[in-house]
């Protein structure tokens, strides 16, 4: 079942779109627009799933992901990475750093929603479900 999702995204319009989609799908949505303070927000809000943009002001999404995986508390937090750069290298790097899924902007709404659902299911079934990835 959908739970709480946190969106870390600096483009307000994109944040609004994703927020609309996920709320409609039953998620409790929170948003955060700055990379530098993202880790604090994650600790504070303790989301079930994280949607993380790669290019953020203050701190890059990849750096944030690296810290998350190094912290035992957030080691298994399912993370969906988003990027608008669209380079294979970024995708490889994100997955290598432990992202559970990866979407390139612009994405199809259904794809985003499905990916998040699948991530939540896998997380529920098994706590060790790292690398579950997109269905």
């Amino acid at each position: 079942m959908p739970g709480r999702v946190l969106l870390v995204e600096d483009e307000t319009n994109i944040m609004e779109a994703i927020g609309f989609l996920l709320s409609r799908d039953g998620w409790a949505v929170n948003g955060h627009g700055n990379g530098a303070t993202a880790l604090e927000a994650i600790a504070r809000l303790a989301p079930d799933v994280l949607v993380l943009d790669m290019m953020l002001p203050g701190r890059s999404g990849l750096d944030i992901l690296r810290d998350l995986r190094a912290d035992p508390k957030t080691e298994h937090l399912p993370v969906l990475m988003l990027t608008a750069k669209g380079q294979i290298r970024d995708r490889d790097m994100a997955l290598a750093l432990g992202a559970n899924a990866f979407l390139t902007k612009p994405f199809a709404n259904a794809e985003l929603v499905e990916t998040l659902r699948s991530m939540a299911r896998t997380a529920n079934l098994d706590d060790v479900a790292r690398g579950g990835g997109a269905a």
Partner: protein
Amino acid sequence: MLSFDGLVAVCVIYVAGLFGVAFLAEKRAAEGKGRWLSSPVTYTLSLSIYATAWTFYGAVGSAARTGLEFLTIYLGPTLVFVGWFWLLRKMVRIGRAQRITSIADMISSRYGKSGGLAALATVLMVVGATPYIALQLQSVTLSFSVFASSGALGQPDAESTATWVAAGLALFTIIFGTRSLDVNERHPGLVSAIALEAIVKLAALLAVGAYAVWGVANGPSDMLARIAASPLSEIEWNGARWLGLTMLSAAAILCLPRMFQVLVVENADERHLATASWAFPLYLLLLSLFIVPIAVIGLDLPAAGGNPDLFVLTVPLSQGKDGLALFVFLGGFSAATSMVIVAALALSTMLSNHIIVPLWIRATQGDRPRSGDMRRVALTARRLSIGAVLLLGLAYYRMSGGRDALADIGLISFLGVAQVLPALLGGILWRGATRVGAALGIGAGFAVWGWLLLLPNVAETGGVMLSIMSEGPFGIGWLNPVTPLGLQATDPLLTAMMLSLGVNVLLFILGSLFSFPSPLERLQGAQFVNIYDHSNTPSVWRGSAGTADDLLVMAQRILGSGRAGRLFQDAALGQGRDGDLPEPTAGFLEQLERELAGSVGAATAHAMVTQITGGASVSVRDLLAVADETAQIMEYSSKLEAKSAEQAQTAARLRDANAKLTQLSVQKDAFLSQISHELRTPMTSIRSFSEILMQDDGMDATARARFSQIIHDESLRLTRLLDDLLDLSVLEDGRVTLHEAEVELAQILDRAIYAAGAQEAGGKIAIRRDRGAEAVMLWTDADRLSQVFINLISNAQKYCDAETPELMISVHHRPGRIEVEFADNGLGIPALQQALIFEKFARLESAQGRPGAGLGLAISREIMSRLGGGLTYVPGGAGTRFRVRLPAKALRAA
């Protein structure tokens, strides 16, 4: 009676036949068939180009005027072929061993492959042969008109006849003479046609002679009686002139370019020379057999006309023997055309190899093209030269007006080309002969000959320089060409001959004795003089900077890739090496140089090989004789040092260029990634919201309106981004056109503030201006300048974070320029980021999440630099401060 048109038709058919023979021979030769092509008989017949129209028509004329003197013209060559056979054999051997292409090449090759000497000899040969070619054109034209006028069918235009004949001969020579570049591959088609013409002219002369003896006179005894009764028998025998003319014609057969061509270059087998040594004198004997009878009959027949030079033609014509006359006409035509063809071929080879190609190489040395275009250049040069040679002949013919007796022009030419004789004989026989001696001798002999014979001949017709003729130049009497040195000689030809050849030989010997030959000269001298023991000298190679690779590339340019490739492969195979490239050993380089010499001449080939290898090939024995070797090696090594320094420099430059390229490539990747990001971001919102709207399951109207609004805004953002990118690309390429005009600064500012949506009152930001200072006229592109202002104003609107944002626009009049400053009351830009703001896609930390792709300042700065000014960030102030600088030339009186 044959009409003029009919005569032309016969000529055309005859020439077509010659073309046919030539084509057939080329074809047979290409197929490897046709033994007759390279038989001693063909070789001997080709030598008969010695007998030109001058001999064909002029010998009878000469006999009618001066008795048996004409025999000297046959006597000289006969003496050479019989008595000096060993010399001819040596010349042929040298020519084949060194792949000599012409008489000028022979001289140059002997004297250290000197380009200058080759050019001098070439000029001499061209000048010497031009009157001779003119003579042939004249004889053809003359015979045409005689033939046609006797038919009373209208006089042909002499000049156009000569032009057509010259054009036809040029075409023939170009087709069969410049098929292949390597002269040593010989021209079987051309030689076959010439051999056929040799038969025609001999048969024609014999036929008219037989007609004279048996048709006009009543057999040999009656003929002898007529001769005894004729004025010919009373002509006194001039011993000195006989001796001189015999020597002159002997020299000519060795030195004439066309004779060298058939004698040496077209020689397929040295043994053919043995046959020619008796067969050629026999041919000459047959030619001369009926000269006197024809002359006597001609003088006896009043109907034969007054010009003894045309008796051969007029004797049968006056007796109504049209068929025989036509045959005679073709014989004369053959004699003239075969000479012109071979002479044009030989001279064009010299002109192209020794003058045009060297100049071309010098002119293009800077960029040294490596593609296979040398062949085309050489062939084109040769073709152009053929045309030029015939044009020269034609021009001389027109200038001289065709007045001179045939024999005189021929003898002038003979003496001209004979000037290379001392250098030629000396070079073959005397190791001590040097380049300096050869150049001095040829140059001086050439000058004396030109002064004493050529100049009067030209001036006589031109009507110029008549005072020089009688009084000498600058009033120096003894220098006048008519009675030089006060010699009251009755025979200008003999005087000129003694003086020119005397000066020539003297300077040649003195010059050789008092100059020191270069190593290469010594080597070549040894190879020429001792040709029979020098065939396979072992030699060592000095200097090996050149690689086989470079040599192959160069060889391909000249020989064509197929032949060069085969040559290199064979050599590699011979050296027992794998692959296609042989070691550049001395032996191989010598062979390569000789192959190249066959195409471009020895001097050029040597220069080209040396250019690559930086050394010279020298035999062990000759090395010992070379005294200044050390100096050469030192010079060589210093050249090498210079070369390696140059290479190091090039390598460093290449490294720099590579680093720059890598950097550029990294920048380009980053830029593309940035663009991708900037385009995908608005597209994400557009796609997402449009999908939401498409699904539209009972969404309320406010939400739908809001989502549509976002889609609309993001579309505009995309459009702006694309506009900016295009704008920037145009500006950076410098393709932008400025529309400059006189405009007031205040107006531009008004427009910018309005467009930025920041009216002075009630806008998002308060704008302060100094209208007094703005009242200045500018010469600029108002649209572009206002684009910059708009960018600065809207940046202030977007980024100024003061409570009550203010923008101060001030104008400063500086010497030679005007500055417009935009200062806001915000926090300013942090020092670290000030350097980045003009970069593409640079957006400051604080600017994240705000519209704009970060191209504005980059564009504005480009615009200002196009307008001749600048855009800078002014640090140190309280807020953000930009300064727009407009150049002095933009100023106009306010």
